[in-house]
């Protein structure tokens, strides 16, 4: 299994890091599938990665690091279960996995079962997010806590409670059957998108969360090759990520129209568009595909003036039909303002203000302010920018809005 040569410390460290990225979720998923014990699975995966550092230095880096790690973790689990009576009873039930050593290529990829179980709707939403990150990407509890601005002890508690509920409430470890799949898949996609957006915000400087979300979306598209929406989500993430570098300048938010498009990542845009085309060719639409199509309109336009606003307005209409929400209505209002006329867009925004549904949402007022400014209604624009400023959650947005007020 190994190439049988000692490997340098650097080479081993690089190989273990790469394996951690690619194989952590798979090792944990396989071990949960075999033992049904989430804590044991995580502990043994951790042990296997620690063992890899020492063993690979001595024996060389194996040809298939993921397989080596899975086998090692599985053996570790067997040893630990042998130590006590309940464990031995469990091992007898799991005779298959003690008796033989299946060739590692035969071990199926269990990550899909793991993703669906982590994102089960009977778990609190925050717990789904934390559990997905912990078990599938191997981010430590401390790293997850920092990413969500939560105390590590609280995050640890959240993970413990979630795992306990899975076992005590009988949440099945499986990919849901066809009749449950659309709803459950939507729940999985929502978790991945939240992780991405959390990472897209300013406080994730290391980009860890956005990178993990894209990685998980890629895994999901490989594991569900016939489902279009995971592809739609991956495309959406890639098309947003492509613009990330230009979203702020020196800590000030830069709106789409002023972003330096030459700096957008062409590679990500091309990949995003290709993934989206793939999804659309399956001819089953969905909200992530529509959102990705809107992002693609922006990403492939030379500038704001050359953006296909009528198409974007149509796509928002479609999105409203698939996934109605006041935020989507607000975005549609902008597209209508650009495609038809500012007053037409303003009328839609004013309708939203009157409905009171986005009362606390700073972008409602920022959008209204922006349209009023374009319409030459300076005093009203200033008042609306000030409303937005009072509600804006990030420093970058507050700086941007302050700048706007100054320009009026």
């Amino acid at each position, binding site marked *: 299994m190994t190439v049988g040569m000692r490997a340098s410390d650097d080479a081993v460290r690089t190989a273990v890091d790469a394996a951690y990225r690619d194989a952590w979720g798979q090792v944990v998923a396989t071990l949960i599938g075999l033992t049904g014990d989430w804590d044991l699975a995580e502990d043994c995966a951790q042990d296997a990665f620690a063992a890899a550092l020492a063993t690979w230095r001595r024996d060389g880096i194996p040809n298939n690091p993921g397989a080596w790690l899975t086998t090692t973790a599985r053996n570790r689990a067997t040893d630990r279960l042998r130590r006590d009576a309940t464990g031995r009873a469990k091992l007898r039930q799991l005779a298959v996995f003690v008796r033989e050593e299946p060739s590692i290529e035969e071990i199926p990829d269990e990550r899909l079962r793991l993703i669906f179980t982590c994102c089960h709707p*009977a778990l609190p939403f925050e717990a789904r997010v934390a559990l997905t990150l912990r078990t599938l990407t191997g981010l430590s509890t401390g790293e997850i806590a920092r990413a969500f601005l939560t105390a590590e002890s609280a995050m640890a508690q959240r993970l413990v409670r979630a795992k306990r509920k899975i076992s*005590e*409430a*009988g949440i*099945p470890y499986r990919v*849901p059957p066809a009749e449950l799949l659309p709803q459950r898949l939507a729940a999985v996609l929502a978790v991945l998108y939240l992780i991405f957006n959390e990472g897209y915000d300013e406080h994730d400087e290391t980009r860890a969360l956005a990178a993990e979300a894209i990685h998980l979306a890629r895994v999901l598209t490989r594991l569900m090759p016939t489902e279009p929406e995971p592809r739609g989500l991956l495309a959406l993430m890639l098309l947003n990520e492509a613009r990330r570098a230009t979203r702020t300048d020196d800590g000030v938010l830069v709106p789409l129209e002023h972003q330096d498009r030459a700096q957008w990542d062409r590679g990500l845009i091309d990949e995003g568009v290709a993934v989206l085309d793939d999804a659309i060719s399956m001819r089953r639409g969905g909200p992530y595909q529509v959102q990705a199509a809107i992002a693609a309109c922006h990403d492939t336009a030379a500038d704001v003036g050359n953006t296909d606003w009528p198409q974007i307005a149509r796509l928002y209409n479609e999105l409203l039909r698939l996934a109605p929400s006041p935020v989507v209505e607000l975005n549609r209002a902008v597209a209508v303002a650009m495609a038809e006329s500012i007053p037409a867009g303003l009328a839609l925004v004013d309708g939203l203000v009157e409905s009171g549904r986005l009362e606390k949402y700073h972008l409602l007022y920022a959008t209204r302010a922006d349209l009023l400014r374009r319409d030459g209604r300076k005093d009203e624009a200033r008042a609306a920018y000030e409303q937005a400023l009072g509600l804006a959650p990030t420093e970058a947005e507050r700086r941007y809005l302050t700048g706007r007020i100054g320009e009026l």
Partner: protein
Amino acid sequence: MKYVLLICDDESKSPSNEELDADPVHQAWLADLDRRGGRLYGARLRPIADATSVRVRKGETLVSDGPYAETKDFVGGIVVIDCADLDEAIVIAAGHPYAQWGGVEIRPLWE
């Protein structure tokens, strides 16, 4: 797995036992549960007007009228079921007529 389904609503509807027995949704639900072999026990509870709550504090027994918790929905019946896992319990709970206007709380038995 064994679960208790707590059948809840706000008691504004209060169908009689006869009405409930005649409800085609309720009949279909019972038939489905029996087909799954999952019905261990079931009972309807009298309304909260007949409820009494007991608490013991500092050795003193405190008795009050009404349900324990001041919530919008109250437990109106309990069903003990045995089924494969939470997903099956969710399917069973969703078939109960009260799920359409009240709600069903699924609680695993502590065994």
